[in-house]
Structures are given as structure tokens and as C-alpha cells.
């Protein structure tokens, strides 16, 4: 039963500029935190099943920079970078994230979203992970809008959920 509940992921939209992903994992917070913050472990899960990670650079301290690069099957490369804003071991990491476009400088914070990742102890030695992505300013939200996503994602997705049924 614990297995079934631990495999459930929730995606919600707490505000017009935020996305919240929640999932409970079957391991204690200090191990989840280690998997999240150790480059050779990040490589094993971060690309999902969609490719290989070629760079997992993490200067893991407040003010330090990180950069992840993945080569997807199909050969195209996607890269993200950012800086750490807040680190509370085993509890909380706040960092910026920029999806690199052609011409994006490696230290650019333009178009960055702010991610807050929390690790909360759950029943049975499990950990509830919450990833809250905040597009924050209007400027950033508009940048995201240009890629096809505008504010109001929450309602947008509520409709889509209803519609999904009729698409099946």
C-alpha cells in the first residue's frame, strides 16, 4: 500500500505564476537530499528516461552556480543553469533556473525562475518532496508567455483536465 501512495505525483498551480509538484518518496529526508545534491547521483535520475546527462556541475553553496546539460535521444542538447540562494541541509534548497537558449550567456539570470525544493519527513520513514517553481516577476512571466505559456496556467489546466477525458 505504501508503494501505491509513494508513486503518486501531484501537479498543482497555486497562483498564476507558480507550479507546484509534490511527491512522496520511500526514503528518509537525508537520503533524498543526498540524491538531490550529489552530481553523480543527479545524473542517474534527472534526465528521466529521455537521454544522458553530460554535465552536472554543482558549486553547492549559497551564491554558487550549477549547470545541467542533457543530450536527449534524438541528439539535441538541453541545458539549464542557475545559482543557489538558500541551502538548509536535509530540508530546503532555493535556487534560480534558466533554460538556456542559443546565445544565452552561461552566467545569465535573464528569464530565471525561482525553484524552492523542500524535503519533509512523512510517515513510515518516507519523505514528501515539494518543488515550487515561481516565475515571479511580470517580466519573467511574459518571457514564459512568449514560449506559449501565459499567466493563468492554473485555470488553463483545470479546463484541460476536463477536456482530457473527451480526448481519450
Amino acid at each position, binding site marked *: 500500500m505504501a508503494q501505491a501512495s509513494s*508513486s503518486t*505525483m501531484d501537479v498543482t498551480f497555486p497562483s498564476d505564476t507558480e507550479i507546484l509538484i509534490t*511527491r512522496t518518496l*520511500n526514503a528518509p529526508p537525508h*537520503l533524498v537530499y543526498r540524491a538531490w545534491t550529489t552530481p553523480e547521483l543527479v545524473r*542517474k535520475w534527472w534526465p528521466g*528516461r529521455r537521454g544522458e546527462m553530460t554535465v552536472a556541475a554543482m558549486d553547492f553553496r549559497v551564491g554558487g552556480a550549477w549547470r545541467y546539460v542533457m543530450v536527449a535521444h534524438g541528439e539535441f542538447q538541453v541545458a539549464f543553469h542557475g545559482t543557489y540562494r538558500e541551502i538548509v541541509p536535509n530540508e530546503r534548497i532555493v535556487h534560480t533556473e534558466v533554460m538556456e537558449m542559443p546565445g544565452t550567456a552561461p552566467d545569465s539570470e535573464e528569464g530565471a525562475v525561482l525553484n524552492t525544493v523542500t524535503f519533509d519527513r512523512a510517515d513510515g520513514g518516507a519523505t514528501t518532496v515539494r518543488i515550487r517553481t515561481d516565475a515571479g516577476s511580470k517580466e519573467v512571466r511574459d518571457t514564459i508567455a512568449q514560449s506559449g505559456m501565459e499567466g*493563468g496556467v492554473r485555470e488553463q489546466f483545470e479546463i484541460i483536465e476536463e477536456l482530457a477525458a473527451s*480526448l481519450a
Partner: protein
Amino acid sequence: MARAATTADTFNAVAEPRRREILDALTQGERPVNELVTLLGLAQPHVSRHLRVLREVGAVVVRDEGRQRLYRLNPQALKPIHDWVASYQHLWEERFDLLEDVLEDLKEEH
């Protein structure tokens, strides 16, 4: 209306809150314009303008019945949005599944 140019695809058409209300109303079934006007509490020209945008991206379909113009939803046009959400969700599900594997290994080390 600087935004006019941004209505050309489904994502942007659906980003407008009033248009989402129209789509919501149409999930209940086909409706004539005057019903939408009443439901939304907007002037008919505004509703018609939103309907035109939705029609241009294929999100709604219109047919004439006598003097009435009846609008209905075309969910297929919203599929790209649905697919985008699904792929984003699937990626995180994959990540968490792999993370569970990593965690099993870490637990065994102890």
C-alpha cells in the same frame, strides 16, 4: 490591442481568462451566442470577438440552425496543450521513479 498578434495559436488563445470561461461553458454542450452573453455577463460584441479568436484556432466550431449560431467545443484543437502538460508531468514521474531506484541503493549502503 498589442496582444492581438499573440492569439494565433491555441496556447495564447486559451490564455485569456474570458475565453477560458467560454470553453468552460461549452464543456456542458452546444450553446447559442446569447446564452454565452448571459452566462458571462459581457456585451455581445465582446463575446463575439472572443468566439472569433477561439474559432480561428479551431477551439470552437460554429453551425447555423435557423437564425441561431450554435457554438460547440472542439477538444482536438486543445490537444497540443494537453500533450505539453502530459509530457512535463511524465518527465517528473520518470525522474521520481529513477530517484526511487537511487534511494534504494543508498538505503542498502547503510
